[in-house]
């Protein structure tokens, strides 16, 4: 309890900062999650090299209430790690995480437990997200029991049945085991478990990536309904831009642990600014024969996360690279309402007096 009071008090250090925190449900400031590995140089040698994987690298992010923020990026960019770190399922290396204006970065297990009711996660792999030895009833009732939200067996059964119905499943599904369901149905069970505690924030980590197209559509529609009915904010993590477009209000693009562009959904897709975003969008094959496919083919591949290039981390592959790019690192700056880019091409185009880390809501 003391921690909660302290964190609210401390967030009132600058008047401006307090106001802007007030609008956001979730906010990160300079968040870092580094993994370090020690590798011996040779089999019998004594010396070793420490390689650091910067999964999340000095990241500022904010998510408003009732908003779906799509977080896109290719494999290894750190988006999954970011999702887990925000929920404190991974411990941040440094930086801060704010939830409902409270600094939860260093909350103890007990304080965190209170917060956990309000932030939940759904994972990608429906096969490994559910304990194969438990019935659906046990799986969904567990969070209810842990937080003392139900009293007695009858009450629990009713609540579980209600949740199953909300996700489009039947009451008598609760006595079955996960392996008796299809991938899409299992994802629904995962969603039911996640919304059991009535969270205000949901992290959806590649939740439809393992599903067939027609089932994807079902789950996406379900998420959109739940978002409206339950006033949820969703951090929708995906590598699939087409899916992200359907569901997101705003989109952030990640590359090698950093955010390179963020904008309202329509703006990002119709007028992408960052060369990476442009290449990414152009690479997606469109199911339409009228529209030609002219992908911007990027040079090489994403470098190993432990060897971050100098300057802008994208410069070795960038089709529009110029001499500044390998010397100076980039910062995320706002170039128009709600649209921020981290790229030297837009130097000098910042909206006056604002950088992304101190901007107001659009």
């Amino acid at each position, binding site marked *: 309890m003391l921690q909660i009071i302290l964190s609210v008090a401390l967030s009132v250090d600058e008047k401006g900062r307090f106001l802007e925190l007030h609008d956001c449900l979730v906010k990160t400031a300079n968040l870092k999650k580094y993994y370090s590995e020690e590798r011996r140089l040779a089999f019998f040698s004594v010396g070793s090299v420490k390689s650091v994987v910067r999964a999340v690298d000095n990241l500022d992010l904010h998510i408003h209430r009732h908003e779906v923020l799509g977080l896109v990026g290719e494999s290894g960019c750190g988006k999954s790690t970011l999702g887990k770190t925000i929920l404190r399922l991974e411990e941040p290396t440094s930086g801060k995480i704010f939830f409902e204006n409270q600094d939860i970065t260093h909350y103890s297990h007990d304080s965190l437990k209170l917060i956990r009711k309000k932030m939940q996660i759904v994972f990608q792999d429906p096969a490994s997200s559910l304990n194969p030895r438990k019935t659906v009833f046990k799986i969904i009732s567990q969070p209810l029991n842990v937080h003392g939200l139900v009293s007695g067996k009858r009450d629990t059964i009713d609540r579980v049945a209600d949740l199953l119905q909300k996700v489009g499943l039947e009451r008598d599904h609760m006595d079955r085991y996960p392996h008796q369901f299809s991938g899409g149905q299992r994802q629904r069970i995962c969603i039911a478990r996640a919304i059991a505690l009535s969270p205000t924030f949901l992290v959806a980590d590649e939740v439809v990536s393992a599903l067939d*197209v*027609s*089932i994807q559509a079902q789950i996406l529609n379900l998420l959109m309904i739940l978002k409206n009915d339950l006033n949820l904010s969703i951090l929708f993590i995906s590598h699939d*831009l087409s899916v992200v*477009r359907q569901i997101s209000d705003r989109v952030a693009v990640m590359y090698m642990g950093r955010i390179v562009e963020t904008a309202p959904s329509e703006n990002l897709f119709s007028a992408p600014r960052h060369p990476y975003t442009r290449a990414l969008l152009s690479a997606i094959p*469109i199911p339409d024969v009228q529209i030609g496919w002219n992908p911007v083919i990027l040079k090489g591949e994403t470098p190993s996360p432990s060897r971050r290039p100098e300057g802008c981390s994208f410069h070795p592959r960038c089709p529009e690279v110029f001499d500044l790019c390998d010397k100076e690192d980039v910062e995320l700056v706002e170039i128009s309402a709600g649209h921020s880019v981290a790229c030297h091409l837009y130097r000098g185009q910042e909206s006056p007096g604002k950088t992304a880390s101190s901007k107001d809501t659009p």
Partner: protein
Amino acid sequence: MNDPLLSIKDLRIHFQLPQGTLQAVDGVCLDIDKGQIMGLVGESGGGKSMVGLSVLRLIPEGGRIVSGEILFEGKNLLALSDDEMRDIRGADISMILQDPLTSLNPSFRIKSQIVDVLKLHKGYDKKEAEIIATELLHNIGFPDPEKNIHKFPHQLSGGMRQRVVIAIAFSCNPKLIIADEPTTALDVTIQAQILRLLKNLSQEYQTSVLFVTHDLGIVATLCDRVAVIYAGELVEQALTRELFTNPKHPYTKALFRSIPRHDKRQDQLYSIEGMMGTPIDWPARCKFYPRCSEKEKMCDHADFVDFVTYAPDHFVRCLKCR
């Protein structure tokens, strides 16, 4: 008009399960011409992978080819002996699978894996094969082949591994390549590189490709002709342009409606009611009937639906398209 390079006629593959007979492939007819890229589209469980595997007679344990023929340059592959089949695999017909990590042997360097294939089918000696392998990797845009050819698969990224797999597949100038979801496990920017590569190689060597995928976007950009498979049966087949502008089968139409697109926003994604399920001992009638939004009374009564010619080179399996 030349004979097609590959002609699958009325292929049926069944699995005997404790629950009944799984009709994984149930009467598929498909033709691929020389130099043509044919897309085979469907969802998981629909049978598309099985069709691809059956061409090389690599069906998993428990599967029986109950009937049908697979004619390759006029010869029925299903009637060949094991030795004859082995000569064809890797040389005349190659395969590219989905997961590049498990397609390559983790215990051997890249070099030896390519060289082995060249030695086996083309009879080169080690030195010649090495030179050809390096050149091959160069041609397909593999970075720094002289150095990287000595690496092990796990030291390479997914995209590079898939390039190696493609190099091995093309090494003996095959006439046909079966590609089973080769880019599904890759990032979209790498996928773009690989798709470009496949298209160029196919054009350069006049290699036909049977491209199995669930991604209609890939089909639109890469394939000359498309076949749509559902529960083991082809439900529609046409030239790509024709299928995309004038789809006729309700399943094809539903698929198009349920695909999210990044170039347009849809208010709500259309989703097909229900699930395909597993085709075990299904009755002989329209397989899409339970989920079809355009069904009519006659669809329930008919106990067989033909694959008919709706328009020149456009076939549909639907009673409403007679």
